């Protein structure tokens, strides 16, 4: 018998449409697997088994009656625990919100439920999508399912770990400086940071208003596209939300990529000889070179292109995050500093030392970088680069307070520009950890990102190997 928990969203949907599978059976399979193995990786903070069973029964009843709500109808998914859920606690992985039960759902949660998705529960996260996972927080640290001695990346740690470990078919994450793409890369899943403004953040705990995005992680690119089909769309309650034409992202994954032009930002991940120039591990370079070859064989043109320096995006994004996160959490770090983890508290305090001029300069710099990036992309549909520098970190204590000082983030450029960026797994290293590259597109052109990512996945073997728990 097929293991139901490793089915893709598209395949599970097809089986349910044909009456060969029920959402109730699928949901029970996931609940059983969560009970059996989640103790090893602690990806869930709250499992909403009864709510999930009710939603699954409802979905089965509707589908039996010929009602199809869309690609997520009857599909079990989970939420990073910064998404507000009516009647279910939303902790932010923090003592500050450990008993907080929202009255209404986040807009994205409402859309998932309207689309018939089955919510399995709430997932571990870096505290308020920022601080590291430390022992002074109320829930255990999420572990990497490929090797539980290592971290899964963050801040959407539970989302990456749960998807990779087949504990849900898709998960919601958030991405302010790479928080979807880091765990996706380290856990070997797909994950997309959508264009800023495409997916509502209403009801999602903010970290940095002008950089925050909400988006999905799943095992395949195709499944991410199907999730985005349900999630994307204008929300008048999110001031950054954009009004854009509806796009069929699921269909976009079947587009041929012959003629697609891809700009390879190799200089971001193969640094020079300066003290501050970082370079990815040798195996990662080889895997990305292989991915370039595959994309060329599929008919895409891949050419090296020079973009602004990676450190420029990194400092720009970090100054904005530091200032805005301080503004958001200032009152709490004054009144109840002891309730934060020791890294989170200091990261939120640091913004008090930035000047207004420094913050505004970073915003001005952001506009310049966005324009320069757009100019460098002229004549290209996509940008390709590495997703992470190498293997994930271990759980050594104490953890670095200011983790962003040593190396620039490979994911930050597309938070600064606002463009969509997706993580695609491109191999398993000799250390047993997944390797990954990013594909980024023009603003609101997620369709091209999905087309290239899905085409790559179809002709490579990396989706057939899961971590063993």
């Amino acid at each position, binding site marked *: 018998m097929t293991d139901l928990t490793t089915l893709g969203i598209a395949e599970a949907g097809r089986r349910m449409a044909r009456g060969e599978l029920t959402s109730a059976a699928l949901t029970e399979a996931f609940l059983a697997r969560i009970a059996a193995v989640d103790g090893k990786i602690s990806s869930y903070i709250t499992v909403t088994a009864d709510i999930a069973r009710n939603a699954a029964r409802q979905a089965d009843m509707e589908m039996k009656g010929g009602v199809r709500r869309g690609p997520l109808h009857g599909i079990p998914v989970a939420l990073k625990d910064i998404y507000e859920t009516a009647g279910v606690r939303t902790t932010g992985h923090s003592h500050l919100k450990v008993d907080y039960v929202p009255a209404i759902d986040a807009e994205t949660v409402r859309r998932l439920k309207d689309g018939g998705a089955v919510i399995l529960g709430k997932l571990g996260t870096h505290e308020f999508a920022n601080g590291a996972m430390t022992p002074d927080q109320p829930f255990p640290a999420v572990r990497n399912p490929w090797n539980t001695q290592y971290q899964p990346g963050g801040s959407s740690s539970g989302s990456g770990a749960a998807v990779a470990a087949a504990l849900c078919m898709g998960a919601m994450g958030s991405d302010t400086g790479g928080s979807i793409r880091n765990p996706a890369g380290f856990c070997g899943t797909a994950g997309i940071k959508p264009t800023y*403004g495409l997916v509502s953040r209403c009801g999602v705990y903010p970290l940095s208003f*002008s950089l925050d995005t909400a988006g999905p992680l799943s095992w395949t690119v195709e499944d991410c596209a199907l999730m985005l089909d349900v999630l994307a769309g204008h929300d008048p309650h999110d001031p950054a939300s954009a009004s854009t034409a509806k796009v069929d992202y699921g269909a976009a994954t079947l587009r041929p990529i012959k003629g697609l032009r891809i700009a390879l930002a190799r200089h971001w991940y193969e640094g020079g000889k300066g003290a501050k120039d970082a370079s990815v591990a040798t195996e990662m370079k080889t895997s990305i070179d292989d991915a370039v070859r595959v994309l060329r064989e599929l008919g895409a043109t891949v050419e090296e292109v020079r973009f602004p320096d990676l450190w420029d995006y990194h*400092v720009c994004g970090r100054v904005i995050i530091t200032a805005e996160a301080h503004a958001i959490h200032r009152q709490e770090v*004054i009144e109840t500093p002891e309730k934060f983890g020791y890294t989170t508290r200091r990261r939120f305090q640091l913004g008090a030392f930035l000047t207004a001029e420094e913050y505004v300069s970073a915003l*001005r710099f952001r506009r310049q970088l966005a324009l320069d990036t757009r100019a460098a992309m002229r004549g290209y549909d996509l940008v390709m680069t590495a997703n992470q520098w190498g293997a994930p970190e271990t759980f050594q204590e104490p953890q670095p307070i200011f983790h962003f*000082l040593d190396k620039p983030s490979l994911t930050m450029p597309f938070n600064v520009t606002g463009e969509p960026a997706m993580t695609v797994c491109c191999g398993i290293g000799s250390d047993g950890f997944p390797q990954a590259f990013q594909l980024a597109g023009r603003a*609101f052109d997620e369709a091209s990102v999905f087309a290239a990512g899905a085409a790559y996945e179809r002709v490579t073997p990396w989706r057939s190997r899961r971590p063993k728990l």
Partner: protein
Amino acid sequence: MTSPKAPPTLEEFRARAAHTGLPLTPEDIEHLHKGYLGLLEMMARMPTGWAWAAEPPHIFRADE
């Protein structure tokens, strides 16, 4: 930014910390001093010569 800033000593930083309104322990201040110096060094990359009217987006919209 208008001019490069000399990095503050720990003593200078401590005096500044007293004006932030935050309840900071001596350990907090030491960590924050290191973090601030790191950020200051990184911020040296940001351009200094902005036109006075260079206006950042009030709300960033990628579809603008």
